[in-house]
């Protein structure tokens, strides 16, 4: 089965092209093709994972281009990390594919949606099994394109187009850094392949400063893709896309790709403590920072978006403190429970046609299935034992406590905020009194095609934490690493989430403290949070306006200096061509017409030969034969 791993990305890729070209002719406009391809890819992934657990490894490559001594290979490799990611990605993608049948029903660009969804999944799967940086980068960019298309799916609204542009351009900033990093590694190491790069690093071929610079440059890519501070601004806006697509982009694929890249290239980071320090602080800061913004968001998807940024910060911080296994573990559990939360929010939005939580409330009675799975997902996000998020977050905190206490306390603070905002979102959406009577009355579950994926993901979000100990012996960097239980860490983690949940309930359920009072007390902070720390505004003024100003200056220069040169060149060109024209008419045309005329006259003469008398032909034939004979006789 493991030999067929290359089929896993190829199947969705083929499906994407098939849907794009012939989707409109098939029943369901191609959704069945997409779901079928994903199902097979999922089964293959499970087979590959089982083989990998049995100890199998597989690597294979085709020669793609040869340039002198340089041979570029198109290769894939399957190791435990890749195998786990394959299963996670295919599961979530399959669920999203199925869920979308209900959610996107009747959409005008249904076919396009499915084609892009499949292409997106194919890119992520290709990225996961790539064995070299170059192809990883290719798939990485392909994913950027797909995210652009998905975020801009409802492009009739200008805001969505802006969101798509923002996502594309912001991640592009990260990609430039990443590309420079890749090229630096290539220049220094002469290869793109991970295993060869790791070998070069192990035998000390790299100068440590070069490696440090390359690692930090490479890390800029994940900062963009995984929406870490300061390139996180695109992710909340990316909620403009269809909600199931958000689930795919922000749970299992695109944002996970950044974390995956750091894990995949961990050999580059491990020898450079400074790089790891940067990674750890970027992650920890992002975790806390995004969690504070999530506190005040009113849009249910925005809350999830900032929550995603925060959780990605957890993973990045975990990688920074050396908790490789914990990071991958959290990546997996997060993929499940965040996909669940996104799809559940999709179900809610589908039911009430609004994203503002202040217009929801009391929906638990109307949407029992969605409500229950949401509770599971929220519990996992908060880290309530024994749900999956608890185990992975606990492991991250444990490693952080042992290696880097400052990071630990930052993450604990973020965890407390996570508990608060999650409880807030849950309460506002599903409990309390309905605040929008009309929406409440019309709310209903979205049918089995939507509830079944939710239930499956709910089960996964609940139980996937129990694989912690097998995973630790399976996916690791260097030596297997078993974190032992630490009562202190457990105590702190439990205390903060109980605190966060309790505070949220106190405010929103029991109204012990008035929300208005809190806002009045903390008004400056509240405004800053509402404005998302003004980062978007700063970017708007500095980069967007700056760019426009620069463009105006360039335009002036263009109009007054470049145009002058261009016009002068054009004038000279015209004069020259006038002379050329006369030459053309007189001489060249004369020759051309002369040749044509010669043929006309010549053929008029020559066609006299075609008399139609068979005997003449025979005669000529025979005279030719005679001439040949005569030459032979005389010559011989």
């Amino acid at each position, binding site marked *: 089965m493991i030999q067929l791993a290359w089929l896993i990305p190829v199947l969705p890729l083929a499906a994407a092209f098939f849907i794009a070209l012939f989707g409109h002719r098939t029943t369901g406009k191609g959704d069945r093709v997409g779901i079928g391809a994903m199902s097979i890819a999922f089964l293959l992934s499970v087979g590959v994972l089982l083989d990998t657990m049995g100890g199998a490894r597989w690597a294979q490559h085709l020669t793609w281009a040869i340039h002198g001594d340089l041979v570029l290979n198109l290769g894939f490799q399957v190791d435990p990390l890749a195998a786990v990611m394959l299963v996670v990605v295919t599961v979530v993608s399959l669920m999203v594919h199925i869920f979308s049948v209900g959610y996107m029903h009747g959409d005008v660009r249904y076919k396009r949606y499915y084609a892009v969804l499949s292409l997106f999944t194919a890119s992520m799967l290709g990225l996961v099994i790539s064995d070299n940086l170059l192809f990883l980068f290719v798939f990485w960019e392909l994913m950027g394109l797909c995210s652009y298309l998905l975020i801009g799916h409802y492009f009739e609204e200008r805001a969505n187009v802006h969101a798509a542009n923002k996502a594309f351009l912001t991640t592009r900033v990260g990609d430039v850094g990443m590309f420079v990093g890749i090229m630096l590694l290539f220049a220094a190491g002469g290869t793109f392949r991970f295993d060869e790069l790791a070998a070069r690093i192990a035998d000390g071929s790299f100068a440590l400063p070069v490696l440090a610079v390359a690692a930090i440059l490479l890390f800029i890519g994940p900062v963009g893709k995984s929406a870490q501070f300061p390139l996180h601004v695109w992710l909340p806006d990316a909620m403009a896309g269809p909600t199931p697509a958000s689930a795919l982009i922000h749970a299992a694929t695109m944002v996970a790709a950044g974390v995956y890249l750091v894990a995949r290239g961990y050999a580059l980071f491990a020898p450079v403590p400074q790089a790891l320090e940067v990674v750890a602080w970027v992650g920890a800061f992002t975790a806390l920072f995004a969690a504070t913004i999530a506190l005040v968001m009113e849009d249910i998807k925005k809350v999830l978006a900032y929550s995603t940024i925060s959780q990605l910060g957890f993973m990045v911080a975990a990688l920074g403190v050396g908790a490789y296994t914990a990071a991958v573990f959290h990546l997996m559990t997060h993929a499940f429970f965040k996909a669940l939360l996104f799809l559940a929010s999709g179900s809610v939005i589908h039911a009430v046609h609004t994203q503002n939580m202040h217009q929801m409330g009391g929906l638990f009675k109307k949407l029992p299935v969605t409500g229950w799975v949401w509770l599971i997902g929220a519990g996992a996000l908060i880290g309530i034992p024994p749900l999956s998020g608890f185990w992975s977050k606990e492991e991250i905190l444990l490693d952080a406590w042992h290696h880097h206490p400052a990071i630990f306390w930052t993450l604990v603070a973020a965890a407390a905020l996570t508990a608060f905002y999650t409880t807030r979102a849950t309460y506002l959406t599903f409990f309390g009194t309905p605040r929008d009577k009309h929406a409440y009355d019309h709310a209903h579950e979205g049918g089995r095609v939507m509830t079944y994926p939710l239930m499956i993901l709910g089960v996964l979000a609940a139980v996937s934490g129990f694989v912690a100990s097998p995973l630790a012996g399976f996916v690791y960097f260097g030596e297997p690493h078993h974190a032992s239980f630490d009562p202190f860490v457990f105590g702190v983690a439990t205390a903060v989430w109980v605190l966060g949940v309790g505070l949220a309930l106190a405010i929103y359920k029991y109204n012990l403290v008035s929300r208005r009072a809190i806002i009045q007390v903390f008004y400056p902070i509240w405004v800053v949070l509402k404005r998302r720390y003004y980062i978007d505004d700063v970017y708007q003024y500095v980069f967007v306006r700056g760019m426009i100003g620069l463009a105006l200056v360039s335009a002036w220069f263009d109009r007054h200096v470049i145009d002058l040169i261009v016009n002068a060149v054009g004038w000279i060109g015209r004069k020259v061509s006038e002379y050329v024209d006369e030459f053309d008419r007189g001489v060249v045309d004369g020759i051309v017409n002369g040749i044509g005329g010669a043929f006309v006259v010549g053929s008029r003469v020559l066609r006299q030969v075609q008399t139609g*008398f068979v*005997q*003449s032909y025979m*005669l000529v034939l*025979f*005279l030719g034969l*005679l001439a040949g*004979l*005569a030459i032979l*006789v005389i010559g011989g």
Partner: protein
Amino acid sequence: MDATRIAFIVLAAVAVVSAFRVVTAPKIMHAALWLGFTFMLVAGVFVTLGAEFLAAAQVLVYVGAVTTIILFGIMLSQAAEVRSRDPLQRERLEGAAFWRRGVLPVLATVAFVAIMVTVYMRVPWPAPPGGVIDTVRLIGSALFTTYVIPFELAAVLLLIALVGAIVLAVRDDNKEEQGS
């Protein structure tokens, strides 16, 4: 000068005269009969050259089949002209036709025969071997071993020619009635 050689010279002389009549006989029917006669004489030449089997085949194929079919062709194509003189035989050649069908063919033919005979005279041919060989057995065994595939192809060719001739010659009554 042995008997075979005398026989050959006689047969050859008559064959040349007879072939000349094929070209010049005023009636086409007579030309066809002269042709048959020429074929018979060539068969005789084959015998003097020791090719008895080919002589038999010559009589069967040429005299028996080809001449007959040509006679049929003459009768079917120009029934009225069978007994009369071929009107095309005697004509005055004028203009281009004088060269095309008068002078040049004569020159070409004479030149050809002259060149060939000169060549034949110049080449030091091996002497005739004499003796007797069972050529029938030789041909038979070669035909069914070395040349078996051309032999079978020849059979196919004949079949195709048969079918083709029938398809071409069959009268399309419907078309004829419509006057096309």
